[in-house]
């Protein structure tokens, strides 16, 4: 479904992605893990079209999208949940989701209030992520956890084919983390998911396969069980996480 080949990206002298290749088939849930600075967020941003790669190619459902803008990729079915919350702060939760719902029909609809059906869809999506009853609250007044839930609702409202999740549980309480994890776990199996995550419980709960990045390279790629047993992965990542914890 989404495939990258020999992806390179340098920021000045710093090489964030150093020839990354991976192939996520239709419907797979792929976690990308690695220590800080491994290039995970850069990879997500290159996939989403927010950063252009210095070299290599990105394909979506067989189509080369390397040169497409983020809005063009969104129309082809890519949705992106950012590491830092990116919402429309003076608008209500409902209007935030409605902007995503309305994107398909485009903004050039003048002189008429948005159709009720768009709001109904938005409210249904808010209920699904656990924000029922909070539809009219503006983003500024939502808690951090609620904003993350709203982020997810906005991305899902795009009806994506591929969902890019950049640390969806960052900064969340254990209860909120569990809720988001179960929510993502319960999503349609046809949806392809690429998730960057630090919380290993979340990774092993959600991912079919895991790709490990280290210094801009893929150092391991396999099923969750394989990666858990990989010695190099322990050295650069899991082992360190255990000692820190």
């Amino acid at each position, binding site marked *: 479904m989404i495939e990258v080949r020999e992806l390179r990206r340098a920021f000045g002298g710093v090489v964030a992605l150093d020839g990354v290749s991976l192939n996520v088939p239709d419907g797979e849930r792929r976690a990308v893990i690695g220590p800080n600075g491994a290039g995970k967020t850069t990879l997500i941003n290159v996939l989403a079209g927010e950063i252009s790669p210095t070299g290599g190619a990105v394909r979506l459902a067989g189509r080369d999208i390397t040169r497409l803008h983020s809005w063009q990729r969104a129309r082809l079915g890519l949705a992106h949940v950012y590491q830092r919350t990116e919402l429309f702060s003076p608008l209500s939760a409902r209007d935030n989701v*409605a902007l*995503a719902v309305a994107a398909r029909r485009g903004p050039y609809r003048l002189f008429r209030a948005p159709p009720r059906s768009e709001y109904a869809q938005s409210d249904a999506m808010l209920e699904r992520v656990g924000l029922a009853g909070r539809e009219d609250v503006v983003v500024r007044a939502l808690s951090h956890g609620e904003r993350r839930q709203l982020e997810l609702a*906005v991305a899902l409202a795009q009806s994506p084919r591929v969902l890019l999740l950049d640390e969806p549980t960052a900064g969340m309480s254990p209860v909120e983390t569990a809720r988001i994890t179960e929510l993502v776990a319960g999503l349609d199996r046809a949806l392809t998911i690429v998730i960057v995550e630090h919380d290993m419980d979340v990774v092993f709960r959600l991912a079919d396969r895991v790709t490990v990045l280290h210094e801009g390279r893929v150092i391991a790629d396999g099923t969750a069980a394989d990666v858990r047993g990989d010695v190099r992965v322990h050295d650069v990542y899991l082992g360190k996480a255990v000692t820190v914890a």
Partner: protein
Amino acid sequence: MRPLVRWALVAAAAVALVTFPYWSAPWESTRFATTLLRDALVLAIFALSLDLLVGRAGMPSLGHAAFFGAGAYAAGIAGQRLATDQLPVTLGAAALVAALLALVIGVLVVRSEGIFFLMLTLALAQIVFAIAFQWTAVTGGSNGLSGVGRPMLATVDFSSPDLMYVLVAITFVAAALLVWGLARSPYGRALIGVRENERRMRALGYDTARLRLSAFVLAGTIAGIAGALSAYSTRFVSAQDAGLGNSVRAFVTVLVGGAGTLGGPIAGSALVSLIERVVPSLLPVELRISEAILGLVFIAFVLFARQGMVGLGRQTWLRVRSR
């Protein structure tokens, strides 16, 4: 309030506004108030168009007078060269020229943001001003373009002060309804999305550069129509109409009234018109510097009431209600 009641009130207010010269005649024999209100309404249309950019889409343009001036010149020049005062011709020329100019300038500026957008619009508008000022053969240069005809619609002649006022007032009501309709539509909401978080809008699949360009052209077109009304009203176009002073005046009007609201640009034009035309006559001769007074009022709003007159009104209303 029930929607029907609200619409009835809005309709009554619009009728009262449009017919002002007729019911004010008994106590207003000099027509000073009619002229003042007419010019305030032209400023209000201009400010409403600018607020689409400044308040809604978050595009702080300091060059909006370029389109006002382009519309004013286009209406005047088209009328004189084509020897017609027919409204569809001259107003159509104004709208078309302003729209084309906004398209050209818009393509150059919409990809920049914030202070860069502000400086680019300022610089490009100064080029338009320089052309208006130098191209004497077409624009009259520093002498301005005089003898602009009052328009006619078929056989209706708007040359009387009262009918000229009526034309301006009807256009104002139409412009206010247009902005109101846009603000509540998916289009208006998308502009707010662009203002608040353009990156996320792009991630949702919106072509934000095109969205911003559409707002720029729409705002420029309405400003051009305001410019044409100004040319008809005063029968004169000055290069200053396209100048920085006029851009700043519209910007101040929007901010003093309250950006991003329907009432703000309207309230702002009432205040600015009063400061320009009424307040000086109440002051001793040495203090009749309306620009300085306007500047002080603007500073006061920036320091103490960022949300403008509309924001002050809302705060007062909330305070009264909570008592």
